């Protein structure tokens, strides 16, 4: 009865402004409130009830209700409840009170629905463009229902640039990205540097924005979206695949067979293994320690092979359909997986012991990129970043899904809040994942892999799903719709939240520590940039002649 408990606490103060409540199951709470009460209610939930802010969503509900909708999702981790506070907005352009000054973690979410849906967050402390490219015309909002998914705005302005802040006094601007050897994807951190010390930074990202959410609500169908969701991220693709399927299944009140739940758990943990091993290698590479990078990848390789044997691909498992999974774990695969885990555990134990005493690595990582518990709360940081600061949150235990309710595992926390603590958390989580997979394999239930779906899925239901990705909690919000596709699908990847904490982490540190601090949140920019539209096929591309390109390249550091 935990959702009802949370509802009771909120209803005590806010009954007059609550229009409707929905408690579809124990762990989900949906409240529809009046617009003017949104701010106070969010403040109450965030501060007084100490919930965690998850994501803010804006959507164009005009085809159905004639209004726009804003939802703010919170998580009551200790009570195991995910809740969504929703409010309908009339008028065009719709306006809603910004909650970013009360809930700093909502900063990006509000800028996002400002850009993409055109809902204006009144009173936002930093109302600059987040997602859309600089040249995108004002007033054109791609996620609105009347905007086609493949349209190119005619008045795209190539020469418009982003309006960056001025650097503080005495600081020089050092551009970090969009092209930098450490970054796998483009992102621009504008560092304000005083000598060798970073005094502040401004982030301009979303350069690999791919329109996945727009495709999800206008082109793809329910069972095609998992393939798109998987490609949101190259490392935690399975997480998005499963989280989307779970959100739809929760919205449609579908129960999937137990064998499917266990297989989903096993694949998710296999993904966690490969991701953490990759991260340790990458972190060492950033520090210049290529030998440990090579060895981590060598130890990781058998995981990729077993994943390929189970699912047909090393990384894009294409695991879920709505109602179940597509691949089976045969007895032969089961024993092979056990063998891989045994070798992995032995080798990783040796590496963990060696690294734990390595003062050379510790010198570069202790006290670097510190995110303390206060920053974790304000910015809504999650995953190993939060656990390294001593905040004990883990979506596998707090909001159990798949088979996590049936297995035992510990949540690893450390106290330092620095890069070293995050490295330890990730290294030790490998052993917990091995434990979980072994338990799942031992108790793998027999049965079908997919639930038979006889009717079309019900329309207009809301589903929330939180899955613990290796980087933190990945959260999917789905409203089911007509024509075999959702009305709205919002993805909140963990890096979306963690990146908002980076400017505070790198402040008053040296430039040399910038890369390892950024790398320590395990950033996945392609996860962050998964939104909205448009192929600029004919819009912004022009063919530069070789002379023009050379002139641009030799222009030095001024990039257009």
């Amino acid at each position, binding site marked *: 009865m935990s959702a009802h408990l949370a509802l009771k606490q909120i209803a005590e103060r806010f009954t007059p402004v609550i229009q409707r409540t929905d408690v579809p199951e124990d762990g989900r709470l949906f409240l529809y409130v009046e617009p003017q009460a949104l701010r106070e209610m969010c403040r109450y939930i965030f501060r007084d009830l100490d919930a965690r802010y998850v994501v803010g969503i804006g959507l164009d509900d005009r085809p159905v209700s004639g209004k726009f909708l804003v939802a703010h999702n919170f998580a009551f981790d200790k009570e195991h409840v995910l809740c969504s506070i929703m409010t309908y907005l009339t008028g065009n352009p719709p306006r809603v009170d910004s909650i970013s000054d009360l809930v700093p973690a909502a900063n990006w979410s509000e800028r996002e629905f400002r850009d993409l849906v055109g809902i204006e967050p009144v009173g936002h402390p930093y109302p600059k463009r987040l997602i859309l490219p600089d040249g995108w015309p004002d007033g054109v909002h791609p996620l609105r229902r*009347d905007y086609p998914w493949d349209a190119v705005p005619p008045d795209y302005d190539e020469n418009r640039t982003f309006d960056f802040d001025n650097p503080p006094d005495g600081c020089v601007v050092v551009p970090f990205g969009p092209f930098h050897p450490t970054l796998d994807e483009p992102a621009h951190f504008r560092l304000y540097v005083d000598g060798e010390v970073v005094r502040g930074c401004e982030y301009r990202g979303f350069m690999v924005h791919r329109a996945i959410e727009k495709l999800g609500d206008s082109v793809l169908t329910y069972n*095609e979206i998992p393939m798109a969701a998987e490609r949101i991220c190259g490392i935690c693709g399975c997480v998005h695949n499963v989280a989307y399927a779970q959100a739809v299944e929760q919205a449609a009140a579908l129960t999937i067979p137990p064998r499917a739940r266990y297989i989903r758990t096993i694949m998710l943990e296999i993904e966690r293994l490969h991701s953490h091993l990759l991260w340790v290698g990458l972190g060492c590479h950033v520090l210049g320690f290529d030998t440990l990078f090579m060895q981590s990848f060598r130890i990781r390789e058998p995981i990729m092979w077993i994943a*390929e044997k189970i699912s047909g691909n090393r990384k894009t498992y294409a695991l879920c359909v709505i109602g179940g999974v597509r691949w089976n774990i045969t007895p032969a695969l089961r024993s092979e997986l056990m063998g891989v885990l045994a070798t992995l555990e032995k080798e990783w134990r040796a590496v963990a012991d*060696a690294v734990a005493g390595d003062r050379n690595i510790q010198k570069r990582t202790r006290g670097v990129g510190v995110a303390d518990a206060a920053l974790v709360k304000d910015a809504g940081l999650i995953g190993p970043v939060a656990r390294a600061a001593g905040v004990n949150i883990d979506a596998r235990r707090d909001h159990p899904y798949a088979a996590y309710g049936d297995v035992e595992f510990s949540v690893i926390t450390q106290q330092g809040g620095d890069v070293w603590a995050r490295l330890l958390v990730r290294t030790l989580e490998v052993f917990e994942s091995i434990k979980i997979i072994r338990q799942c394999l031992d108790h793998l239930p027999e049965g079908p892999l997919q639930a038979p779906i*006889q009717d079309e*899925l019900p329309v207009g239901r809301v589903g929330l799903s939180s899955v613990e990705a290796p980087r933190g909690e990945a959260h999917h919000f789905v409203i089911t719709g007509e024509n075999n596709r959702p009305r709205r699908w919002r993805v909140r990847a963990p890096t979306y939240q963690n990146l908002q904490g980076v400017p505070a982490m790198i402040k008053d540190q040296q430039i040399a520590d910038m890369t390892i601090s950024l790398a320590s949140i395990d950033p996945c920019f392609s996860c962050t940039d998964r939104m909205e539209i448009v192929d600029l096929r004919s819009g912004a591309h022009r063919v530069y002649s070789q002379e023009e390109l050379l002139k641009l390249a030799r222009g030095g550091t001024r990039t257009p």
Partner: protein
Amino acid sequence: MSLLSKLKETVICLQAGRVTLPYPQEPAKPPAGFRGRPIFNIAKCIGCAGCANNCPAREILVHDICQEIRIIQYVGRRCTYCGRCADVCPEKAITMSPEFENATNDIGDMQQRLELFMGTCQRCGRCFKEPGPMEQLMMKGYRLDLLEQERWVYDAKTYLDREPTVRDIEIELG
């Protein structure tokens, strides 16, 4: 002590030995169940277009030249090797082969074109039983995708210039 951990790390490295595989000098065979290039078997295909219906990348095009002849073309350009086409095919005519060395200069090498002789039906044109409500055909009747431009055409009118036999679903195109 740091020296001890460095020694431990060195021992780990030296115990491992060389792990580089001699690919491509020697072939690397993928495991069974590997999802490589899909192979379409025209002998088994019944022309239902279920594969085209469920391809997330819209890479399978369907074009009816006349009532008797249907062309199903797998373009292969954006194919993600997800295997949904193989999943939904009622005749198991599509297999995911172990071929992964698919780099080519000419996209035509990847195309597979099936020209099928269809049985005629006077009632609706093309009518196939769907596996389930989630795999329902998005478009029924005759299909006229543009094969050269590699594009789906969402408004299907028959070549016989009659009203569309079954309206396709609304997809906002503007």
